[in-house]
Structure formats: C-alpha cells, structure tokens
C-alpha cells in the first residue's frame, strides 16, 4: 500500500487512513466523488488493490464463520413468542453456564432475598392463608394482571407444573405496596404449602436488572432442579386440572 498516502483523506472532519477508506468502499459508504478517486488509485496502485482483495477475501470468510456458528434460531423461541401464556422452564442447564445473570434474566427474575419458608423464622409475608390457598386452588395462570387479595395484596399464578414427587406445584407472584415476591407452592394432601419464597427487586429501567447474589441464585436453581420436571401445563391442561379439583 502507498504509505505516503495514508492519513491524508479528510472526511467529515475526520482523517482516515487507506484501510478506513477501503472499508467504506467495501461497504458502499463512500460518496461518488471519493469512490471515483479510490477506483483510480486502485488501478494505479497494485499494493492498494492487493490490500482490497485481502480485505474482501476476509469478508467472505467472516460470513462463512458467522453462518457456521449461527444456525437458525431455535423454533422453541418463536413458539414461546407466539404463546399467549408464556411458560419458561428447563433453566438448569443455562443456570450452570450463566450463573446469577441467567436467574436474573429468567422468569425467576431478580431475587434479592430467598429463604426456605419452612425453616426461616424471618417474617414471611407469603405465609399461607385462606385467600392465598384459594387463589392457588382456583386461579388460572396468566402473563399479566393481578387478582386482589385482602391486605392490599395482588396475586398472580405464573405457571403450574408437576413435581418430581408427583405433587402439583404452582409458581406465583405476590405484590404488596412496592414490593413483589415470587414463590412456589405445592399441593400436599389437599393443602397448599409454600416451598420457597423470594422477594424481588425490580429496577426502574426495564432494560436493566441487578443480578442476584450467587448464593441466592444457587438456592433458586437448586429448588427448581429438585422440584420441577421440564413439563409445565398449557392453559387448557391447567384449566382442566383446576376444574377437576387437582
């Protein structure tokens, strides 16, 4: 390449070298005047032509590499997007790879505090009561909306799934004031029993989140791993199950 011509092209106040110029030429981003000037140089300067050929050859390889590594997006993602009532399961493999971020970004959202209800002596706003048990017994899962319970609480079932031990379990959300909790309750001998509960911290900006601490993430992941199979009920199945009295 003609080194004596490097860094002499002024474009929009920026000085660019020949590689920048060639890059813009490859991308068809040069205006007509600069394109003509470059074409004339390419005819006159074999080194510049060679450099362009090398960059274009790399370009073809780059496309091959990306194509090789990015097969079609999984159909399940499109299916998830088409589903009216979204069910997100099977987190364990990704949780192992992504640690806290995966939990924070998954349906489990951001769990700042997680504790075992049956073992904790901490005040537990989601202790099972008649209203919560009734909601778990009768309310279908939904992607949005809240069912009002007493104490200014809002309830939403997120999904229903069979536990490995044969019990039916429901993941649900509870909101009170500005705090939300996410929990899983399982139906045990006709009674709903909370299994794990975590308070959630949502940041104001919807595109940002704060990853949970590693310990919290592991507790949630462990619970899901130990409890859920990878099949959650669809809306019709869940509706039929509720109607049958579980």
């Amino acid at each position, binding site marked *: 390449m003609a080194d004596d011509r490097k860094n002499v092209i002024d474009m*929009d106040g*920026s000085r*660019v070298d020949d*590689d*920048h110029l*060639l*890059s*813009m030429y*490859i*991308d068809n*981003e040069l205006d007509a005047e600069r394109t003509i000037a470059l074409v004339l140089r390419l005819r006159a300067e074999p080194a510049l032509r060679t*450099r362009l050929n*090398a*960059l274009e050859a*790399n*370009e073809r*390889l*780059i*496309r*091959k*590499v*990306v194509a*090789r*590594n*990015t097969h*079609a*997006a*999984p159909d399940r*993602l*499109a299916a*998830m*997007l*088409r589903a009216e009532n*979204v069910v*997100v399961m099977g987190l364990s493999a*990704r949780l192992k*790879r*992504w*640690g*806290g*971020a*995966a939990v*924070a*970004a*998954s*349906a489990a*959202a951001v769990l700042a505090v997680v504790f075992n209800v049956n073992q904790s002596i901490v005040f537990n706003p989601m202790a099972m009561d008649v209203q919560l048990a009734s909601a778990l017994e009768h309310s279908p899962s939904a*992607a*949005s*909306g809240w069912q009002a319970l007493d104490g200014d609480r809002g309830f939403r079932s997120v999904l229903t799934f069979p536990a490995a031990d044969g019990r039916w379990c429901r993941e649900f959300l509870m909101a009170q004031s500005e705090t939300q909790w996410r929990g899983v309750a399982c139906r045990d001998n006709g009674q709903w029993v909370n299994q794990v509960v975590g308070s959630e911290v949502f940041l104001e900006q*919807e*595109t*940002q*989140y704060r*990853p949970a601490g590693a310990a919290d993430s592991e507790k949630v992941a462990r619970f899901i791993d130990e409890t859920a199979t990878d099949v959650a009920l669809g809306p019709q199945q869940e509706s039929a199950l509720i109607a049958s009295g579980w």
Partner: protein
Amino acid sequence: MASLTAQQREELIEELPRLKRYCFSLTSDPTDADDLLQITVERLLEKGMPEDAHVAKWSHRVCRNLWIDEIRSRDVRNRYALSESAADGAGTTAANTDDSVQLDRVSEAMERLPPEQRAALVKVAVEGCSYAEAAALLEVPIGTIMSRVARARKALAEDLEWSEEREA
C-alpha cells in the same frame, strides 16, 4: 409494559435470526450465543416493552445489557484460562481440511476482536446493514460504526497475516 403486544411478538420472531447473529457477535461462542438469545427472549417476554418501542432496537439493547452483566459476573481468570486452552488445542488440528482450518483461524481472530468492533462488523459485513442502520441498532454515532468496522477489518487482516506467517 407488562407484556408484548401481538405485533411486537411477530416483529420479534422476524428479528430472531438477526438477534442471534448479534448474540454471536457479542459472545463469539455459539453456545453462549444460544444462551444469550434464550435469556433475551425470556427477558422480553417477562418485561415486555413500550408499545411505541422499536422492536429491533429494544431487543438489541436488552441483549447487550444482559451480555454486559454476564461479562461482569464471569470469572475473568477462568475465561482467560479457557481461551488459552482453546488456543493451544487449535494448533493440534492438523487433520482438518484447509477450509476448516482457515475458518477456525478466522473464528479465533474474530474472538480476539473487542466485542464492540465484532458487533459492528457483523452488523455491516454479514447482515448488510448500512452504517446508519447499524448505528441505530447499536445506539452509537455513525462515525463510530465506520471506525469500528474499519479497525475490526484491519485487526483481522493483521491477525490473519501474522497467523499465516507463523505457520509458513
């Protein structure tokens, strides 16, 4: 902003292939790209987006933020060790075809690019975005895209030249 509208879901489905390539451009690892795409979609389903949001820009932003958080949470030393191990192994694949070796070499060179350069390069060189389109999606000035793409090409060319000279 609790959920996606039907229109947004359709647009997002259309966007999935490009979003997947963007994931790969960020992670430079196919498996990580799959994971990143998955949690991006889950995140969008869970949090939704404003009704007037540009679906492609919004989804790219969510994806980018998730990846930034992932980078922060990773053990850098472990990642470095893995990449060193992979680099060591690359020299032992003499049985591969020339084409495969060449692609591996390009793939490794791409992996060594700064993620922001790699993302700009994939948007422009692979997806065919104009600088203006790439700038809008990645939310940086057009001049930044121009610069990142040119520097990425230059770095790749030098990396590959050096790699060929070393093996010659």
